[in-house]
């Protein structure tokens, strides 16, 4: 029997030998580098320029959308792709349990999300450094965070959201074997979740506290001690963790039991 790292290597090859992956990373890099340039040249005069961290944070707020979408694309294709190519039947007749094959796919998807996030940070921060005011950030520390620490907490919480969305896409892909559905559903959630939180306001409905959408954006805790519906950060994290485990559980159960007649 081969080594488990070989499985992850295989999955990585499947991701990175496709032109699509490199196009996505390129777009992400260009977008991240371009935002600070746009801010720089659109400022009416140089005294209105934002500082490094403000510029970076503005960049992140735009580019992270792309980052999430691209990771969702990779997550959705990881299983559904094998089914639509028909390669699943050659993959599953190796001396590896389906659980381990699924795990290798999940890990390689997470590795991709880390790589794309690093690309975003590297290009975004690099460009922000070149195209921002040298006078420093005016970003007031209402919150007691330093601008750099605030930026990274912001990034971290956005990553949590991406991580959950991608895991959801992975699950849909495992259950329905259709990458289009997985991508569509995840995008819908990305864009509709704020609306859903407004409609099912946890201040009004007690049960809305247990909805995934209510807690996906943890950034509210950067400026406040209580989150939606007056819950704590710990509560939010517990709800997210519960959903995360549920998504994984469903992915695994379905994938392990499925009759493969592709």
């Amino acid at each position, binding site marked *: *029997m*081969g*080594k488990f790292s*070989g*499985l992850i*290597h*295989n999955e990585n*090859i*499947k991701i990175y*030998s*496709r032109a699509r992956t490199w196009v996505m990373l390129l777009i992400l890099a260009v977008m991240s580098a371009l935002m600070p340039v746009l801010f720089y040249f659109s400022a009416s005069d140089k005294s209105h320029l934002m500082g490094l961290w403000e510029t970076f944070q503005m960049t992140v707020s735009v580019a992270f959308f792309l980052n999430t979408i691209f990771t969702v694309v990779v997550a959705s294709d990881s299983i559904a792709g094998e089914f639509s*190519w*028909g*390669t699943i*039947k*050659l993959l*599953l*007749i*190796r*001396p*590896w*349990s389906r659980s381990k094959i699924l795990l290798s796919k999940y890990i390689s998807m997470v590795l991709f999300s880390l790589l794309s996030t690093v690309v975003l940070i590297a290009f975004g921060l690099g460009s922000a450094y070149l195209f921002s005011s040298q006078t420093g950030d005016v970003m007031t520390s209402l919150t007691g965070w330093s601008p750099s620490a605030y930026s990274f907490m912001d990034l971290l919480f956005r990553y949590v959201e991406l991580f959950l969305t991608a895991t959801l896409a992975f699950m849909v892909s495992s259950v329905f074997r259709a990458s289009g559905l997985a991508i569509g559903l995840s995008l819908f959630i990305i864009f509709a979740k704020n609306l859903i939180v407004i409609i099912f306001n946890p201040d009004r409905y007690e049960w809305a506290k247990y909805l995934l959408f209510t807690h996906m954006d943890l950034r509210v805790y950067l400026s406040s001690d209580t989150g939606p519906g007056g819950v704590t950060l710990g509560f939010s994290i517990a709800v997210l963790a519960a959903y995360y485990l549920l998504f994984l559980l469903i992915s695994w159960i379905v994938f392990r*039991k499925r*009759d*493969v*007649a592709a």
Partner: protein
Amino acid sequence: MLTTELAEPVARLQGVTKKIGSKTLVSDLTLDIPAGQIFGFLGPNGAGKTTTIRMMVGLISISRGDILICGRSIKDHFEEAVSHVGAIVENPEMYKFLTGYQNLRQYARMVSGVTKQRIDEVIKLVGLDNRIHDKVKTYSLGMRQRLGVAQALLHRPKLLILDEPTNGLDPQGIRELRDYLRRLCQQEGTTVFVSSHLLSEMELMCDSVAIIQNGRLVDVRQLKNIGDTVVAAAETLFEVDQAETAMALIGRGIVKEGGLVLEVTREEIPALNELLVNGGVKVYGIRALSRSLEDQFLEMTGGEGIG
């Protein structure tokens, strides 16, 4: 034959049943695949060949019964059991955006002990040397089929399962496949389980054949024996100008278009011919209307549509 019967069967299907909803695709199939043979699995379209093969490699669950590969249950010891198996299930689909070689590397990484040398050896065996570094999307169906066989052979499986492997191969390719399956069987002792709905192909390739229809095992037989019986009891057509006269002279047979048909042994033919010629009947030809396995197969499975 004696030796293969003594050795433990490589695969044992024990009362295997597959149900999807209320439909029974394969019904109570019990079959031993003896070691060191090329074993054919024959049946018309929709008979349940692919379904059975999917169960043998663990792609779909077994509703009832069990399948043992080298003594290990594919249900309970999947990894161990499947490690003895190399397979193509229906069309061998590959990663089109990778080269043939990169595809093989994928599968090599999933088992231990497949060296670069082994990969090259297998590529040569299936005759893909010239195109192996091209992307699979540029391959023809036959080339993908060859790559499929290469992939199945990489880890030197004890049991090679091929679902309609000649699909898409040219006559040259079919010939080559037959030859290297033979070689594999004789030199490496690999057991080959090969499905087809083409009987003529099975006759050329296999030592034994199991016939399946409507999900049920109809017959298992050794092919060489069938050949013998064909020679022994041949229906023979005497092409003559006056069939009635010929029948009167011989005293039996059936008058058919083109002459007289009767069952004779090889030894009887010269005497009968002499009898006819002396009786003034012109004999244009004598040929055996051998009931080939094809006829027997059609007789056995024919008359019923796909279902």
